[in-house]
């Protein structure tokens, strides 16, 4: 029997406590590595929200991630705009706006877009953006934008280390809670129903395309936020960040961790990146093959991802629209004469 409905909240609280305490005992190198994982977790969350909640297979999250990275890097290097309060929100805004426009084109047409169409179109856009950036000398061409200065926060430089870590953690928690709130709201109920039986949802009077569009746009914004943080943390933004590799990475994180759980997306990042680090240390040349084999096994034998091994689908299902009690289990007083026949079926 896999976990009850309380297992997931318990995992979430435990992970938050651990994430808050760990930097106090880890080395600078380890904290920087963990910060990178927090930033990538935002990217993974963006894909999980689009696909796992909205049912939009956005195979091009790299596009919005790279865009956010370029916006932050160019603002810092060309416009001397290093304030974290300006550059990072603008990176997020860039992802949001481009995803809104692209999503409008993809999702708001007369005919509903198919899963394959959306997947291929977003992947193609991600690839095209990578090629465009690589060939555009004004934004560094193939070399990208390097030497991105540290962001400033309240007048002080925010260098990679504990300070940056806690900023990234705060943003990750904020995005996680926002996505969690939305996916468990009445809005999330529509999304969950549309993933299961879209035609029925349409027959109830919903037009599902705008719901998907909004989810896609928000996911683009979060990917942009992740990219902006990455550019400041790594000091670099390059064409590869926009491309297929980053987009595929986001998909793999979520597939390994478990689609549609949010926690699974974050877990997928940590498992995959730690496995990469460990394997590359031990097997200098063969590690990508070994990692690929492990990922294949996980996806084949754990179709619900690693999180599915500890929490059942039923236990993960929220009480939509209610964060406290479960009112549906408290029948109200309704006249018995309203009931017809007997519950004999």
């Amino acid at each position, binding site marked *: 029997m896999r976990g009850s409905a309380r297992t997931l909240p318990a995992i979430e609280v435990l992970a938050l406590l651990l994430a808050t305490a760990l930097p106090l005992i880890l080395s600078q190198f380890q904290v920087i590595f963990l910060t990178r994982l927090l930033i990538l977790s935002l990217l993974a969350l963006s894909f999980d929200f689009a696909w796992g909640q909205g049912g939009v297979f956005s195979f091009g999250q790299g596009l919005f991630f790279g865009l956010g990275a370029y916006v932050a890097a160019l603002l810092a290097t060309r416009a001397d705009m290093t304030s974290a309060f300006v550059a990072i929100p603008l990176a997020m805004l860039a992802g949001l706006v481009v995803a809104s426009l692209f999503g409008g084109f993809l999702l708001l047409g007369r005919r509903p877009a198919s899963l394959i169409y959306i997947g291929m179109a977003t992947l193609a856009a991600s690839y095209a953006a990578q090629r465009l950036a690589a060939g555009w000398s004004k934004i560094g061409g193939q070399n990208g934008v390097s030497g991105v200065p540290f962001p400033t926060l309240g007048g002080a430089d925010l260098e990679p280390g504990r300070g940056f870590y806690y900023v990234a953690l705060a943003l990750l928690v904020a995005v996680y809670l926002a996505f969690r709130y*939305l996916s468990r*709201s*009445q*809005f999330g*109920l*529509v999304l*969950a*129903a549309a*993933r*299961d*039986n879209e*035609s*029925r*949802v*349409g*027959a*109830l*009077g*919903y*037009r599902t395309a*705008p*719901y998907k569009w*909004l989810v896609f746009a928000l996911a683009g914004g979060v990917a942009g936020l992740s990219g902006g943080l990455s550019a400041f943390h790594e000091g670099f933004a390059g064409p590869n960040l926009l491309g297929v590799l980053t987009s595929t990475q986001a998909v793999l994180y979520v597939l390994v961790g478990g689609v549609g759980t949010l926690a699974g997306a974050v877990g997928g990042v940590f498992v995959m990146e730690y496995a990469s680090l460990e394997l590359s240390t031990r097997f200098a040349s063969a590690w990508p093959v070994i990692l690929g084999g492990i990922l294949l096994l996980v996806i084949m034998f754990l179709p619900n991802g690693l999180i599915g091994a500890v929490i059942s689908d*039923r236990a993960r*299902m929220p009480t*939509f*629209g*209610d964060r406290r009690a479960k*009112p*549906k*289990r408290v*029948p*109200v007083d*309704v006249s018995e004469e*309203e*009931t*017809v*026949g*007997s*519950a*004999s*079926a």
Partner: protein
Amino acid sequence: MAAPVLEARGIEKHYAGFTALRGVDLAVRFGMVHGLIGPNGSGKSTLLNAMAGSVLPDRGTITLAGADVTRLPPHQRVRRGLSITFQVTSIVAGLSAYDNVLLALQARGSWPTLMRSGTRRGLHEDVVRSLRQFNLLHQADSIAGGLSHGEQQWLELAMAMATRPRVLLLDEPTGGMSIEERRITGQLLARAKEHTAILIVEHDLDFIRTLCDVVTVLHEGAVLDEGTPEYIASSEAVRRVYVTRA
């Protein structure tokens, strides 16, 4: 006689090399159960789908509460008070019975309201009332896909009725049900007609005869005859083309 809530006039629908509907007129009135019967291929489902908006007629008009809805997509018709259930049960199988009804009830909420779950508490009593009316309260937390066939059909009806529609379109609501389940479904619909107009496509003629106030018979895409169940049972034209169990 009350004015029609849903009315089709001169509906024609042609497919490549085949005419599904030839100038069909049909009026569905409040407080009445209107049966639509006919042999296989007579155009019943096409007409129902045209009224629901999932099939666009080539000619003719469809009015809902006096307004022309011929070109409106299904979701806009639903918002104007039309509700439909499907031949193959079409509940959201992965959600609980409670959430299926909540989904139906909250359909008129705006994005911001749904995002902050603004109508959740207010709709709770309505959800419970719907579930109780359709004998499903004890299954509120059960996954809809795991309910028995009859219970899934009632859940479908509960969802369709939850929004208090002006017109309810039912496509073979008793398909696959046991005799007892059919009896209960008949009782549920007889009560439902006090609040809405009902158009029902059904193969079970006994069910039609006991439930309907008016019956229209389609044959080869045209109206063959129309009247009370008793009149239809005695109609010579209907007898000629339709094998009844009467």
